[in-house]
C-alpha cells in the first residue's frame, strides 16, 4: 500500500484515503470485547463461589481493566439496550446508582432475577454498582448484599457475551463496517463513513478523558473536586485514565499507521499520567500537585488537537457527531 501511495504521489495524482477498518476490528475491537467477556465470566464465576469482598476484588479489577479496552466504543451493540451505559455508569452526579441499589437491597428479590435485573436502571448495574458493593460506600452495611452482587456480576457477564455476539458472525456489526458502501448496507453508505465512525469514537474517547476523568476532579482552581474522581473507592481513577489512553492510542495507530505525531502526543500524556503516582487524583486540591494534573489535562487535549490536524488528511474524513455532543 505504501508503495502504491508513493507511486500516486510521484504521478501527481491525489493521494487515496487510507484507513484500515479491518485491522481496527480484528486487532482492536474484537479482542477488547472478547477479553472483557472472559474477565466478566471469571468475575461471575468467582461471585458464585463467594461474596467476600477480598476474594472478588481481583477479578473485579481485572474486569474493569478489560472494559477499559472497549469503553470508548460507542457504536453498534454497545449502544443497544443501554449496554455501555450499564457496564460503566459514570459520572453519576445525582447519586442515582446508589439510590437504585438501596431499593434493590431492600426490595423484592424477584428484581434480581436475570431477566428482571436487565430491566433495572443502568445506574444500579455494572462495574460502578459492583464497586459500591465490594468497597466501602454509601450503601448500608447491614443489608445482605450477596444476592445483588451475584445479580450484578451475572448481568455483566451476560452483556459482555451479547457484545461479542453482536459484533461477530455473519450478521455481526463488524460486517456493517466492513461492507460499508456495498449494496444493502443502509448504515454506512460509503467506506469513508465507516472510517469516520471509527475516527469519531477515537476523538470522543480522548475528549472524555480530558473533560470527565480529569475535568471532574479538577473542577476549578478555587473549587477543586477530588470527591468527583471516578472509582475512588477502588483507587482506579488514574489507572482507568492510563488504560483508556493506551487503548485509544492502539486504536489510533491501527486505524492510521502513519499517525506518528498523534502517537507521540499519546505517549507524552501516558508518560505524564504514569509519573503522577496519585491513584485517585487527590492532588487536585493540593497547590503543589494540582499543576501536574492540569498539565496532564492539557496534554490529553493536545492529543485531540494533534490527531484532528494529522489524521483527517490521511483518512479522508474528519470527526463526526458523537454521543457526548450534548451538554
Amino acid at each position: 500500500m505504501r508503495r502504491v501511495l508513493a507511486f500516486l504521489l510521484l504521478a501527481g495524482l491525489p493521494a487515496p484515503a487510507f484507513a484500515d477498518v479491518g485491522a481496527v476490528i480484528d486487532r482492536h475491537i474484537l479482542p477488547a470485547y472478547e477479553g472483557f467477556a472472559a474477565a466478566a465470566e471469571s468475575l461471575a464465576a468467582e461471585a458464585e463461589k463467594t461474596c467476600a469482598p477480598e476474594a472478588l476484588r481481583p477479578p473485579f479489577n481485572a474486569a474493569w481493566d478489560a472494559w477499559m479496552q472497549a469503553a470508548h466504543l460507542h457504536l453498534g451493540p454497545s449502544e443497544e439496550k443501554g449496554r455501555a451505559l450499564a457496564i460503566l455508569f459514570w459520572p453519576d452526579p445525582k447519586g442515582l446508582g446508589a439510590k437504585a441499589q438501596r431499593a434493590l437491597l431492600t426490595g423484592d428479590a424477584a428484581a434480581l432475577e436475570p431477566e428482571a435485573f436487565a430491566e433495572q436502571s443502568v445506574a444500579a448495574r455494572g462495574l460502578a454498582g459492583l464497586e459500591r458493593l465490594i468497597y466501602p460506600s454509601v450503601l448500608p452495611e447491614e443489608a445482605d448484599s450477596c444476592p445483588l452482587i451475584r445479580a450484578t456480576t451475572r448481568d455483566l457477564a451476560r452483556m459482555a457475551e451479547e457484545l461479542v455476539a453482536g459484533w461477530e458472525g455473519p450478521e455481526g456489526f463488524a460486517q456493517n463496517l466492513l461492507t460499508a458502501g456495498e449494496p444493502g448496507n443502509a448504515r454506512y453508505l460509503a467506506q469513508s463513513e465507516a472510517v469516520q465512525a471509527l475516527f469519531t469514537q477515537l476523538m470522543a474517547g480522548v475528549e472524555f478523558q480530558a473533560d470527565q476523568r480529569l475535568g471532574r476532579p479538577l473542577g476549578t482552581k478555587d473549587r477543586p473536586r477530588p470527591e468527583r474522581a471516578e472509582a475512588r473507592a477502588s483507587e482506579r481513577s488514574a489507572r482507568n485514565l492510563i488504560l483508556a489512553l493506551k487503548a485509544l492510542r492502539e486504536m489510533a495507530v491501527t486505524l492510521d499507521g502513519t499517525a506518528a505525531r498523534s502517537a507521540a502526543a499519546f505517549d507524552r500524556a501516558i508518560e505524564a499520567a504514569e509519573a503522577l503516582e496519585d491513584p485517585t487524583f487527590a492532588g487536585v486540591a493540593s497547590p503543589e500537585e494540582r499543576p501536574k494534573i492540569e498539565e496532564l489535562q492539557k496534554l490529553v487535549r493536545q492529543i485531540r488537537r494533534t490527531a484532528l490536524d494529522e489524521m483527517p488528511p490521511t483518512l479522508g474524513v474528519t470527526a463526526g457527531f458523537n454521543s457526548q455532543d450534548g451538554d
Partner: protein
Amino acid sequence: MKPIRLLSALFACSSLTAPALAAEPAAVVETYADIAEAVYADSLSTAQSLREAVGALTASPSAETLAAARTAWLASRVPYQQSEAYRFGNPIVDDWEGKVNAWPLDEGLIDYVDASYGESEENPLYTLNVIAHPQFSIAGTEIDAAEITPELIGETLHEADGIEANVASGYHAVEFLLWGQDLNGVEAGAGDRPWTDYAQGEACTNGNCDRRAAYLTAATDLLVSDLEYIVAQWAEDGEARKAVTADPQAGLTAMLTGMGSLSYGEQAGERMKLGLMLHDPEEEHDCFSDNTHNSHYYDGLGIRNVYLGSYARVDGSVLSGPSLSELVAAADPAVDAQLKTELDASVEKLAALKAKADSGEMAYDQMLAPGAAEGEALIMGAVDALVTQTASIERAMNVLGLTKVEFEGSDSLDNPNAVFQ
C-alpha cells in the same frame, strides 16, 4: 428583519412546482438568522405573556390564575424548544442557554420538597430552600436573600458553588414554582402545587408565600430579560447574526453542527435514551409539568426548520427563505432527499409519542417505567430516527465540504475564548 424576507417567502410558496433554484450560501445563512430572530422573538413575546399571567397569579391567587399561568408557561415552551437547534453551533447561544433552559435541577435549592427527595452526595445546597431562608451561606460566604431579585437568582444562586444542578433561573425554575414536584413516579400525573402556595395571610400553604411569589416574579422577570438579550443578538446588527452571515461557510457549519449535536448527543442520548435507561421520571425534560412529550416534539421540529429554512410562527404566519436543503440538493440530490425523508420520519415518531401522551392513555412518565414495552418502543422509535438522521447530517456536511465545529467541552467554561480558536 428586513422586508425583503417576506418577498422571498412569497417566492418560496410560488416556486413549489418550479425546478429548485440553486440557493446561495449567503442567502441560506440569512434565512437561518431570520428564523433565529423570529423564534427568539416568539419566545420573548410568549414569556411576556407568562409574566403577565404570573403577575395576575401573585396579585390575586386562585385556582384559575394558577391554571392560567401554567397555560402561559406551556405556550412559551412551543417556540423556545424550536430554538434549541441553534444551541450547539453558535457559541453565543450555547454560552447563554444555561440561564434559561438548564436542566435537570435540584429543586430543593429553591423551595420545599417532599421527604422522598432524599439527599445528595455532591450538592451541599440540595435542600437549601431559598424561599424559606432569607439568610444562608454558600461555600462559606454569607448570603443576604431578604429580598429575592433577578440579580440574586442570576448571579448568586444560579449554578451556586459551581454545581450545574443548582438551577435557580429559567423555564424549569418557573415550571417548578408553578407545578411543584411530580410525586407520581412512573405513574400518570404532573406536579400538583396548590394555588394556596401563593395565598397571602392565613390561607398560605407550605409557608413563605410572600417569598415564593417574589421568587416566581423575579425568575420570570429574569427569563424575559435573558430572552431580550438573545433576540438582540440575532437582530440586524446582532453579534450572533454577524457570526453566521459574515462568513457563510461558517454559518452553514453552525447550522449543521447544531442540527447534528441536538439530534444525537443531546436529544436522542441525554434526554431520551438516558431517561429511559434510568427509568427515572426525574430525567424527564419538563418533569414538573409533564410536558416532556411536547418539549421533545418541538425540538425535533426545530431541527427540521433549520434544514428546510421555514418556521411557523406563533401568530400562524410562516417565515421561509432560501434553504440549506436547496444547497445540499444542488451538491447531491440523493443526500438531500434522504435527509428530508429522515427528518420527516423523526418528526413523525416524535409526533406519535406526543399523540400518545396527549391522548391521556400513557403519560411520558409511564413510558419510562421498567418493562413498559409500548412506551419503550415509542421512545426508542424516536431515538433511532434521530440517530439515523445524524448520519445524513454528516453526509450533508461532507457534500458541502464542511467540518463540524469543535467546541471543546469544558474549555468553553474555563476559557470563553477557546471556542473561537
